């Protein structure tokens, strides 16, 4: 009976990007199929959204190995996250109709804080990774948008589907949404934040975010020291 609830909680909390901190064990698996638009077929192997995702996973794995040995791993992970996620587009998606009501300064501040918040969330997840296998599925590209399907194997034996939605920005593919078991990360944030914004103004939301970031940073600093 509670399996629905469990499955979903699991999924929500994995927040998808956990995968980015995972070894790319899936590279070795041959059953990767790709669906590509004709114009991309020539350089299918060395570029494109799936390639970018895999590359990012590889690079973050390097940093994962360096935890505790270098002081720069966190910065390096942070840089990778920043270059692979399009926080401007995500922030607009999260604020939704409220984007219009916000002043340009508030928008800028929101982008800044939202990216920090996600970053802290994922950095907090690095240590929790215990070697779950990742399998890559389809890659679909339409003009400058793409969806890359991946599957992460859980201890319970279930596979959780996680899709990355990507946007091509000056030749570089960047993630603008992560969909875990039918749940879009951005839409999830959008509805929680819009509920908060019904009671508070944008300034109030920004303050709450700032407090949360501070709290997470302190928590991670303590973990770093005890590591």
């Amino acid at each position: 009976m509670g399996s629905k609830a469990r499955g979903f909680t699991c999924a929500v909390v994995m927040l998808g990007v956990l995968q980015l901190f995972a070894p790319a064990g899936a590279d070795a698996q041959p059953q990767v199929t790709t669906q590509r638009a004709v114009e991309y077929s020539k350089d299918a192997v060395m570029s494109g959204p799936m390639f970018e995702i895999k590359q990012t996973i590889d690079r973050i794995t390097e940093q994962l190995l360096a935890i505790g040995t270098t002081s720069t791993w966190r910065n390096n992970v942070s840089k990778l996250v920043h270059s692979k996620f399009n926080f401007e587009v995500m922030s607009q998606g999260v604020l939704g109709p409220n984007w219009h009501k916000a002043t340009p300064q508030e928008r800028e501040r929101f982008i800044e804080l939202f990216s920090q918040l996600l970053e802290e969330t994922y950095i907090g997840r690095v240590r929790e990774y215990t070697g779950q296998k990742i399998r890559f599925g389809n890659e679909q590209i339409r003009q400058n948008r793409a969806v890359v399907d991946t599957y992460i194997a859980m201890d319970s034996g279930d596979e959780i589907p996680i899709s990355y939605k990507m946007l091509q920005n000056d030749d570089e593919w960047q993630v603008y949404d992560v969909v875990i078991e039918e749940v879009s990360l951005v839409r999830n944030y959008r509805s929680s934040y819009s509920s908060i914004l019904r009671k508070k103004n944008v300034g109030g939301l920004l303050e709450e975010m700032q407090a949360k970031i501070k709290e997470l940073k302190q928590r991670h600093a303590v973990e770093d020291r005890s590591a």
Partner: protein
Amino acid sequence: MFFAGIYENVRFVYDAKLARIVAVCLAGVVLLSPTAVRGEQRMNAAESSTEYFNNDTPKDSGLDVEALYSEDLFSDDLYADDDWDEGFSDPLEPVNRAVFWFNDKSYFYLLKPVARVFRVVPTPVRSGVSRMFDNLKSPIRAVSSMLQLKFLQSGIEVSRLLINTTVGLGGFYDPAKNWWDLNKQNEDLGQVLGHYGVGQGWYLVLPLLGPSNLRDGVAMIPEFYADPLYWALHRDGHLIAIGVDGMNALSLDKDTYESVVTEQLDPYLFIRDAYLQRRAGLVAE
């Protein structure tokens, strides 16, 4: 003693005559339809208010690749492949938050400590036990698929039950998936109702069971009686089995609830919205 009597209460609910529970739930179902309609209206409103993306959504270059892809994955609004967008209602929010608080305390002071004890058993064993419990839910998944006229899925679940119960040693292993690529079909009676147009209705947080809604909550009742363990073990045995299943699953979980609580501005909202979005997605599937 915060938890004194929880067990007695669970037993009381369990003992309550089915008729009484159904009566309450039917009253809920009556409320479903108007809620579904309201949800739809809100959805339309959401659709028409998506202009905020126009400036930033990349323009089509005129190349026609429509045929290559299903529309859902690449709709015009970057974030709206929308069968659902805030088309839910939560009029019981104060009550739900109270139950959420209760569940939160139960989680940290009762459930999690017990689940930690389970961790002395090696992970592969616990995974196997988890699969055994899940195997017993195959029949209801097969029926749910059938009721939605998804005959292939239904056949897959029947095959999985037969293969895993025998070759898989009562479901401890999953040869159906590993050898024959027969993956579990995520179908339940709530999705059957959704398939035939019943909206999710009010959001509910159930004590100890967590997030649900009127539709899926009602659907849980027949699912409960469809559990083979109910017929095999009777009341107390069934309750214990459910408890063990839940604790075992929690022991396999990687502190996911803790993460939501630490990371989200309002964990109640985040979990609610994720749950409703997921259920809508599963129905649309």
